């Protein structure tokens, strides 16, 4: 039987990879933002698993930081997407590939 730490880390890896796939195949910016959230979540999971493996609080501390960062990122990100949407009238990230006002 596979032990708990490994199982948790594998789960984190799977979730992270799924987020990565989503990141790579989507062109919609909101989807990409969601993909980032998936990956952040997976990373948080890995920290939690590690914290429980060692019985130390640092892992959970890190998760809290991740959480704070995700919150800030989403708020700024959404505001940016809003601006882009008004500029480009589209959510296609490729449309934003040129550095043009």
């Amino acid at each position, binding site marked *: 039987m596979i032990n708990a730490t490994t199982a948790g880390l594998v789960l984190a*890896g799977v979730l992270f990879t799924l987020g*990565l*796939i989503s990141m*790579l195949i989507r062109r919609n910016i909101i989807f990409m933002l969601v993909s980032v959230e998936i990956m952040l979540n997976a990373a948080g*999971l890995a920290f939690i698993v590690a914290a429980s493996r060692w019985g130390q609080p640092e892992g959970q501390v890190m998760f809290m930081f991740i959480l704070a960062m995700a919150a800030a990122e989403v708020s700024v990100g959404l*505001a*940016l997407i809003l601006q882009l949407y008004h500029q480009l009238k589209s959510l296609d990230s490729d449309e934003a590939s040129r550095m043009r006002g």
Partner: protein
Amino acid sequence: MGTAFYIAAAVAVLSTIMVITRYNIMHALLYFNVSMLSVAVVFYLYGAPFMAALELIVYAGAIMVLIIFFVMMLNLGSQTAGEERSWMTPGVWIGPSVLCLVLLAELVYLMVQPADTGAEIKVVDPKEVGKSLFGPYMLAVELAGMLLMAGIVGAYHLGRQKKKIVHRFLENSPS
């Protein structure tokens, strides 16, 4: 490992797969909420009940709701689904998926490698977390606070729309 973990893990993986395959963004976001809930269960199982709660409150509650409201505000739900469908051809997703699966295989290979045996799930008290947060990680907490502050200011600044777009009736005003 208990059955609960496997069930939660299976739900998390399946719902995440649903997230990344949906064309309709609202569906995807709802699936993502499900995924988040099951991850919260996993947290709980790994002896971090406080974190599970935070996951529910902040992630599934606040962040997701923010995104959902945002999508609803722009009224994107069904409108972009068709566009999304046209972008999502096999040629687009097969290559990256294979690459990512290779990455996953490598990750798993490395995780399984050490065969760590003496590991049992140890519960970490929220009190411990609090102590270390406000002990050695004090500076980081303050930085996180500044980050959030910057996020607020940034979001406000960026999100402030030009008046002539929102308030059409003020178009001719001098300011």
